[in-house]
């Protein structure tokens, strides 16, 4: 891992640890290579969407894919910028197997000055048998000119 890779890896990891939602869900950056991020979510009771089968909610997969895509964007940039999801499209191929961790692998395949494009897949056992796939676009420097705690102010 080059110095730059190590820095961006720390940033991507910091994003997971710094995001209260990702922390609650236990999203964890497992590895990175180039612009791709591999993320893992443990099976947790709070994730269940179907109490009869124990299958996790589609929304959890949405959250994991969104978060993993964001991490891939951080990994592929040369400097840290605040990013925001602009668009996220997900196909759900099948239910995730209950009581198993779920993985997401996201690849940022193009970064322009303002926008990054990402594709991702979520799976439980093997990427060849995906649970869901995603395509996302992110705005870079989305907080430009907006101060710390900007969202605490009234109006926008």
């Amino acid at each position, binding site marked *: 891992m080059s110095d730059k890779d190590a820095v961006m890896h720390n940033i991507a990891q910091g994003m997971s640890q*710094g*995001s*209260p*939602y*990702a922390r*609650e869900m236990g999203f964890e950056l497992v590895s990175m290579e180039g612009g791709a991020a591999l993320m893992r979510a443990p099976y947790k*009771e*709070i*994730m*269940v*969407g*179907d*109490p009869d089968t124990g299958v*996790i*909610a*589609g*929304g*959890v997969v*949405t*959250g*994991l*894919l*969104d*978060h993993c895509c*964001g991490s891939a964007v951080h990994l592929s940039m040369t400097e840290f910028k*605040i990013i*925001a*999801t*602009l*668009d*996220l*499209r*997900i*196909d*759900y191929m099948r*239910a995730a197997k209950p009581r198993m961790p779920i993985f997401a692998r996201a690849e940022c395949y193009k970064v322009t000055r303002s926008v990054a494009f990402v594709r991702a897949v979520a799976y439980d056992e093997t990427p060849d048998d995906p649970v869901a796939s995603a395509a996302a676009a992110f705005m870079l420097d*989305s*907080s430009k000119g*907006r101060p*710390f*705690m*900007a*969202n*605490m102010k009234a109006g*926008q």
Partner: protein
Amino acid sequence: MSGAQTEAQAALSAMLERIPYARFLGVRAELAGDEMTMVMPFGQHIIGNPTLPAIHGGVLGSFMEMTALAQLQVKEGAARQPRVIDVSIEYLRSGRPLTTYARAEIKKVGRRIANVHVEAWQEQRASPIAALRAHFLLAQGES
């Protein structure tokens, strides 16, 4: 509130209460006739970006997906067990530390597929913070 209305509201609240992820998000549904509004109070556990702070994009996606499912239950009943096929989410504004609302519009219910649009907003209904379009696969109806 009429008897049928109270019953529908109770069925909806019971469904959400049974789903651990819905409890985690803290969502509830408010029914006015056949029009449903989903409500998600703000909490630390739904923050994505702590520096603004802003609600996690995945949470907004989940919330709107749940709104679509709940609206389908209101219209079609629980028997058709909708399963999500795909969603397309548009993020319009950052989710501020405020209560978020969402309403779903069922565009079409066919024999197998339902098309649903959802919009989420905070202070102003006319300034949505996110929108979702989804397709659901339905179990075959009685008819």
